């Protein structure tokens, strides 16, 4: 069983079997990823790229394997390794935004964005006078495409969440890219929640930047990537200065690497790179499409069960959406709910999920969110519904 590959899932929480349903926040790690990182530290630990000794060679090979696999899996020309989605987006804001945008230029965002795809642009806007335009969402949580068509007029960049971390909605990014490209705008996708659920062909998709994290797809925390098209890569200026990103340094000036290393100053996340490479290999052996349908089936059943218990559901659960069920109860506070679920060993998320503008649009302050991933099964869903029923009974 797939579950057996995840040691954490056999532990108990508060005396109960752990039911882990906080996958949109982070996923658990299979034994092979844990082993790869342990092996790296136990046998190959060294700094990458410079030294000529054997360990340095092994470390470099392990780290660069991650980049190679990323490029292969997502069909991308450029893969800059970052600390995660947030750093990837900030990197675009700094390395591309600062050298390509000036006062009066327009960035288009949506109401559905995670704070990490709002705040960097607000900072840029405050510093450079860039205008931010926000595209709203319809009552079915889809993006208002008519509003988008208006908003992109004169825009330099469109930055959009690929799949919502709150609603699980997978946006029609193909249309978004087409509309944005028709006015010559660059497109950045926050694909943190999409990459774990679908295999994306970056080149075919035709966007310029795609940001995502390893830890949401069974890889380690602290590492992620920014995939970049060749055209956009050529427009990026250096951001962080330091070791590894240079070619030569004199007291007067420095010259920089031409490849992705230019944006990876300092010692990179080597063990995490090794771990992510293993996770990429591991996930390659999984039929994501099949798994996606299976998890959606479970999530739909949960949504129905929760509705029957009086919950309001804030999720799409369409065929392309992620298996995420966000819900609220008319009188029980989300935090009380999550705390009581935890007392029975069930891990869910509560709060605004780093998407306060979306919460404001929905007219709520927070939700309880159950998010499903590869190792979840029907028994997890049954446990969630059973304890939810108990909570509603006790709290009513």
């Amino acid at each position: 069983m797939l579950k057996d590959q995840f040691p954490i899932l056999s532990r108990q929480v508060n005396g109960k079997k752990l039911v882990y349903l906080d996958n949109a926040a982070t996923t658990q790690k299979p034994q092979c990823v844990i082993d790869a990182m342990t092996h790296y530290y136990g046998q190959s630990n060294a700094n990458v790229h410079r030294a000529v000794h054997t360990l340095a060679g092994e470390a470099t090979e392990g780290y660069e394997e991650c980049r190679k696999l990323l490029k292969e899996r997502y069909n991308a020309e450029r893969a800059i390794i970052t600390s995660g989605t947030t750093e990837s987006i900030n990197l675009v804001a700094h390395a591309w935004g600062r050298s390509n945008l000036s006062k009066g230029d327009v960035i288009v965002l949506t109401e559905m964005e995670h704070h990490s795809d709002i705040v960097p642009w607000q900072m840029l806007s405050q510093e450079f006078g860039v205008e931010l335009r926000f595209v709203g969402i319809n009552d079915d949580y889809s993006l208002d495409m008519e509003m988008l068509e208006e908003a992109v007029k004169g825009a330099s960049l469109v930055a959009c969440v690929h799949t919502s971390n709150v609603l699980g909605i997978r946006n029609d990014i193909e249309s978004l890219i087409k509309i944005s490209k028709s006015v010559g705008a660059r497109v950045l996708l926050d694909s943190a929640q999409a990459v774990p659920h679908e295999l994306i062909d970056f080149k075919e998709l035709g966007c310029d930047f795609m940001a995502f994290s390893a830890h949401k797809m069974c890889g380690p925390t602290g590492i992620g990537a920014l995939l970049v098209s060749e055209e956009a890569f050529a427009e990026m200026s250096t951001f962080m200065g330091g070791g590894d990103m240079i070619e030569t340094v004199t007291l007067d000036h420095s010259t920089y690497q031409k490849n992705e290393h230019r944006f990876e100053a300092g010692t990179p996340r080597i063990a995490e790179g090794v771990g992510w490479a293993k996770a990429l290999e591991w996930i390659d052996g999984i039929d994501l499409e099949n798994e996606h349908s299976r998890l959606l089936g479970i999530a739909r059943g949960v949504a129905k069960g929760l509705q029957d218990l009086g919950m309001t559901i804030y999720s799409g659960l369409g065929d392309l959406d992620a298996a995420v069920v966000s819900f609220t109860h008319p009188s029980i506070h989300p935090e009380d709910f999550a705390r009581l679920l935890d007392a029975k060993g069930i891990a869910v998320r509560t709060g605004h999920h780093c998407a306060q503008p979306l919460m404001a649009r929905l007219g709520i302050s927070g939700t309880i969110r159950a998010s499903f991933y590869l190792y979840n099964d029907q028994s997890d869903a049954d446990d969630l519904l059973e304890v939810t029923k108990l909570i509603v009974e006790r709290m009513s």
Partner: protein
Amino acid sequence: MIWPEAIQELIEEFIEIEDKFEKLEVLMDFSSEVIELPSDEWDESNRVHGCQSQAHVVVTLEDEKVSISCGADAKIVQGLMGIMSIAVNGSTCEEVIALTPDFAEEMGILNSLTPSRSNGFRTMFDMVKNSVKEMM
């Protein structure tokens, strides 16, 4: 540590409850101990920072004795406020200042709460103690 009698009793009551779910249910029952701060009086000046949910505390001094009125939207937070009310209400300023929120850990309720919530409880406690210090 030797706690005041009322707190010692609370610790003993909670230690006996092994099941976390039950512990939280009992904690929520303590919301009835709270002198309620009406929600229209909730404002930035009495907000407890560090809580994910809404939590407000006002400290008053009557006949040299401390009294707190509290309001929160989550029932568990209300329960924590009830526990704090038992620990604080009717005590002298000196007694309140000498208290630490560690008794909640002994009761096993800080363990059963998220770090942010635990921090919230500590923040709530510090807020009360700071107000008392200002009033002295």
